[in-house]
């Protein structure tokens, strides 16, 4: 019996020694898990930052966290805590905003969201547009915006809204656009439309074989010009400079039959077919260009894409040429649109020409004004919340796994101690009881 007493005493002392060793080994850095969900997270983050023992952090959210929460969790992660997160509705959404090279401002917004989702884009003043996502991304052109622009995505099941937001970057105004053409109404009203839209317009308008009206004489290069509009074969004389300009990143618009001109043919998006007479007698606000005649773009060059079709023919096409872009417009005599019935015809004509030029115009990114980010900007600029969170914290775990294995709020403590202490107590009690039974004190 004395052997059993010694064994119990030794086991109890051994367990005590093991516990002491474990405590001393980990010291004050004893592993401790912390967990919190959405409503309690703000308070928990502050507490965890002051808690040196918070080694394992579990965060349960409805959606991907915002920039501030994400940055805080990332800081905790970089400081040594293991951060694990889950979100019930972690839908990947991305918003990108590309300023248009248009003096009137505006931007192209691309929103990537799950297929079938409805996207509502708004700035800080009003809603800008809404659309259904049918492909990998949805593109929409928007007018000048105010403040941050957000995309609110409602999934097909209708009960989830995810927000991505971005702050438009300040873009420099585009450089001049050079219009080259013979003296005529088309050159006059293209120049006028672009000037009225706010473009700085240079012009070379031919009056005789040796006489030209010039407006702003600068070299045709990307240091001075953002786009060239060639209205007819008057541009042949500058074909070499125009080709270099496009290959360096400049934009080129070939209007009417200009693409058939041999010196410019190599730059075109396609050949030039037989002229198609206007399909409508009068301009209408919904399909105004049906009242214009056009030279079909045919055949397309291999890397060209059709931008506008009319009655099965390509009325406008575009291609890349090294760093530059070329748009080939089949339409001629577009000035008639400006004189069409309806008060909005001049504005529509202006906007269309400006959009065509803006689609190819060169804009130096180096000239973009970069301002240091402010706290407010960092808070507002969250174009891809899900992707940013994955990049910062790793992929999320399933929400179910989170709740099954971890308490919602834990004060810490090792479960080992819960059974060790009673065992030690029982071993010592057995040893004491045995000695008393044997009559020993």
């Amino acid at each position: 019996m004395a052997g059993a007493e010694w064994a119990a005493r030794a086991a109890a002392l051994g367990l005590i020694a093991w516990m002491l060793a474990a405590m001393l080994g980990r010291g004050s850095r004893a592993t401790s898990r912390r967990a919190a969900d959405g409503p309690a997270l703000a308070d928990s983050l502050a507490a965890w930052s002051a808690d040196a023992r918070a080694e394992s952090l579990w965060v349960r959210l409805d959606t991907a966290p915002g920039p501030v929460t994400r940055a805080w969790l990332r800081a905790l992660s970089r400081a040594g805590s293991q951060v694990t997160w889950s979100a019930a509705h972690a839908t990947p959404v991305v918003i990108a905003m590309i300023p248009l090279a248009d003096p009137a401002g505006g931007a192209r917004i691309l929103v990537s969201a799950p297929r079938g989702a409805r996207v509502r884009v708004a700035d800080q003043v009003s809603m800008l547009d809404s659309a259904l996502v049918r492909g990998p991304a949805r593109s929409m052109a928007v007018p000048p915006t105010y403040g941050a622009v957000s995309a609110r995505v409602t999934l097909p099941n209708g009960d989830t809204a995810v927000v991505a937001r971005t702050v438009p970057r300040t873009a420099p105004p585009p450089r001049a656009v050079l219009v080259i053409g013979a003296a005529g109404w088309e050159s006059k009203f293209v120049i006028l439309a672009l000037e009225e839209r706010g473009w700085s317009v240079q012009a070379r308008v031919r009056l005789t074989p040796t006489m030209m009206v010039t407006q702003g004489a600068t070299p045709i290069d990307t240091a001075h010009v953002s786009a060239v509009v060639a209205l007819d074969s008057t541009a042949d004389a500058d074909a070499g400079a125009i080709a270099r300009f496009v290959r360096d990143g400049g934009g080129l618009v070939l209007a009417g039959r200009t693409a058939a001109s041999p010196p410019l043919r190599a730059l075109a998006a396609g050949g030039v077919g037989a002229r198609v007479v206007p399909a409508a007698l009068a301009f209408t606000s919904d399909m105004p260009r049906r009242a214009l005649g056009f030279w079909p773009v045919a055949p397309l060059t291999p890397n060209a894409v059709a931008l506008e079709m009319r009655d099965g023919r390509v009325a406008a096409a575009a291609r890349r040429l090294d760093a530059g872009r070329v748009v080939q417009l089949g339409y001629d005599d577009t000035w008639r649109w400006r004189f069409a019935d309806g008060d909005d015809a001049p504005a529509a004509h202006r906007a269309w020409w400006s959009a065509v030029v803006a689609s190819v115009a060169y804009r130096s990114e180096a000239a973009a004004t970069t301002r240091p980010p402010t706290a407010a900007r960092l808070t507002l600029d969250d174009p891809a919340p899900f992707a940013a969170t994955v990049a910062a914290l790793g992929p999320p775990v399933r929400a179910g796994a989170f709740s099954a294995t971890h308490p919602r709020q834990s004060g810490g403590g090792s479960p080992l101690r819960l059974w060790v202490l009673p065992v030690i107590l029982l071993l010592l009690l057995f040893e004491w009881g045995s000695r008393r039974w044997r009559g020993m004190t």
Partner: protein
Amino acid sequence: MVSPSPFVFATAQYESGDWDSAPLVPANIIDTIARYTSIAVAPAGITVPLSSPDLSRYPFVFLTGHLPVRLTRAEQAQVGRFIDRGGFLFVDDHNHDVDGAFHKTATEELRRAAGPLVEVPNTSPLYSAFFHFADGPPTTSQELNGWGDNLVHPHLFGVMRAGRIAVLYSNKDYSSEWGYHAENKRFQSVDNTRFAVNIIVYALTR
């Protein structure tokens, strides 16, 4: 290879007065344009009613006459819209008389339809758009012979839109000065229609 739509010299037909008082001017000016420039120009002019929507097909319109002018409401509306869209209206007083019926009424009608007429400075690009006229508008034989109001008018007038001349108004009677058959230019030491080139080039490039 140029635009398929050539320049068309259009003469305005209006309800009142004698809009067709200078029938030889269009052909003469068309000849001048073809003679001095490579601007694609239609071989014949056309007449367009001032009240017609067809006015918008011809952004350059010539208007002349001797008699009082009273524009109808439709004509006023079309003229206002025409110049707001970028059209160019060239009005010439065939009387060469600032006290004449045409001048008094046409200037008032233009004011109502388009806005006030202001003096066009003789340094205007109009006078250097093609040929150079250092002294402003060239004089006409009607002025030098003392016909009409017996004055040499030193300036033309205009209704301005965004810094450009939208309506050009002349008291100099170019309608008489240019009213002859184009083949008779060969009898002149200096072609007196050269200023018409400036007007049309200005209209096409400004």
